[in-house]
């Protein structure tokens, strides 16, 4: 499905290239074929073309959510599963990725005001966000869970009762928790690193968010544990500026390629599978299905 769409896009672009290439001098023709080997050159009025002109693509990622997006204090590099996807997109464009920090609260504004061209920051696809931005096809399906400390006897969301649970401002869990655990006291903070701090020092009884983020916390402190059934299914999508169909198709193409040529599996095993000890295959959920979840 995605492969044929990609072919159509490639055909259209190739014909455009042919038109612009006509009448150009030898040098231009030469460089066009050269960069076509490294990366497809896009017309200047598409987002891809603009990015190529800039020479870099600003991508919003998390800086404090291992294993998806985090800053390695030893090397100073930004690393993670989301980062690997961002690198693939940038590579396909032949430009350098410029990773900037996008916390849950400002990632949509970043797309709207152009601070970032792409958001890969563990962002769940939902209908409400889809009104303000466009999503790529799901590149990962996380599940909402509850994380508790070693001495806790909370076994799931129903046990939350009047306990305190931490989640990030602007995340989907603000609402999910008020629906599924209405009596729980919600502690809303700026970033999940604060939630981790709060549960480690016992100031909150639980943290609720995508299991991947929770896994990142377990990696840092293995006394914490995941409990209960999944609260929600959270398909992650890359965030793209509203209405930019061409760029969405491009990104979908890159993601599709990664799923089929093994790069996805490699990234998963490296960043997630090795810690959760769980197996997963590339998600087959479509964007439409993802939007229908949650009603």
């Amino acid at each position: 499905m995605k492969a044929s769409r990609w072919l159509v896009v490639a055909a259209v672009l190739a014909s455009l290239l042919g038109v612009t290439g006509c009448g150009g001098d030898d040098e231009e023709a030469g460089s066009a074929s050269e960069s076509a080997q490294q990366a497809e050159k896009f017309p200047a009025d598409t987002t891809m073309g603009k990015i190529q002109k800039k020479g870099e693509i600003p991508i919003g990622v998390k800086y404090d959510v291992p294993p998806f997006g985090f800053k390695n204090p030893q090397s100073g590099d930004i690393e993670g599963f989301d980062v690997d996807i961002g690198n693939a997109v940038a590579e396909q464009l032949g430009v350098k990725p410029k990773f900037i920090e996008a916390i849950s609260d400002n990632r949509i504004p970043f797309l709207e005001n152009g601070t970032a061209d792409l958001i890969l920051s563990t962002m769940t696809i939902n209908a409400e966000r889809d009104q303000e931005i466009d999503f790529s096809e799901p590149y990962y399906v996380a599940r909402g869970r509850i994380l508790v400390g070693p001495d806790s006897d909370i076994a799931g969301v129903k046990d939350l009762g009047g306990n305190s649970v931490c989640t990030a401002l602007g995340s989907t869990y603000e609402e999910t928790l008020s629906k599924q655990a209405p009596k729980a006291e919600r502690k809303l903070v700026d970033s999940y690193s604060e939630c981790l701090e709060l549960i480690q020092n016992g100031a909150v009884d639980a943290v609720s968010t995508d299991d991947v983020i929770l896994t990142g916390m377990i990696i840092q402190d293995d006394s914490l544990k995941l409990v209960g059934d999944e609260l929600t299914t959270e398909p992650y999508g890359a965030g793209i500026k509203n209405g930019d169909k061409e760029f969405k198709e491009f990104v979908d193409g890159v993601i599709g390629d990664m799923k089929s040529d093994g790069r996805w599996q490699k990234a998963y095993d490296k960043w997630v599978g090795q810690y959760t000890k769980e197996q997963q295959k590339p998600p087959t959920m479509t964007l439409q299905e993802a939007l229908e979840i949650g009603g």
Partner: protein
Amino acid sequence: MDDYLDLLTGNLPELASGMWVTVRLVAISFGIAMGAGTLVAALRVAPSAWLQRLGGLYVEVFRNLPLLVLLFITFAGLRRAGVPVSPWVAGTASLGVYTSAYVAEVLRSGVFSVSRGQIEASLSLGFTYGATLRRIVLPQAFRTVISPLGSLIIAMIKNSAIIGVSLLALPDLLKSARVIQSRTFETNEAFFWAAVGYLLLTATVTALIRVLESRYAIRR
């Protein structure tokens, strides 16, 4: 204009409770600041050089330490070390101790504003140093310092805003506005009303101080 009023009416309980949290935070912290500040001021004017230096160290540390760092140390740091401080305790203790260094300095200058002659007279009448401090110097010093203390209260109102949006996540006025904004995306409206709230608080304190000053302050 409509948007602004709608946001206010739609969220009044949350904003009002946020403002109340701010008021309580500042009130409790002020109590701590006055208590600790008085103690430290006493240290600073004590006859022993060692005590003076101790007081001086306290003042230097807490005037040069950022409040946010202090919040982290008292809340996250202490909890990890095994002391179960709650966000309220950590918040009020931090803000209180932080401000107490300034209170101590204000009180110290207030004490010095009482002329030496009074202290000497009191001592020669047989009052102990402690009694002199308590009955002669401090009452007069307090009256001199009404205005600077008022400024410190205003500074505390402003500093209290840090507590809500920090790790401690207490639902004060600024935090409430932020949560409302995160829900409704109406940034200007939510923050406008928070600003109104803060300005109301500072204006009230300013007015109160002026009233107190006109009644009690010593004019020099």
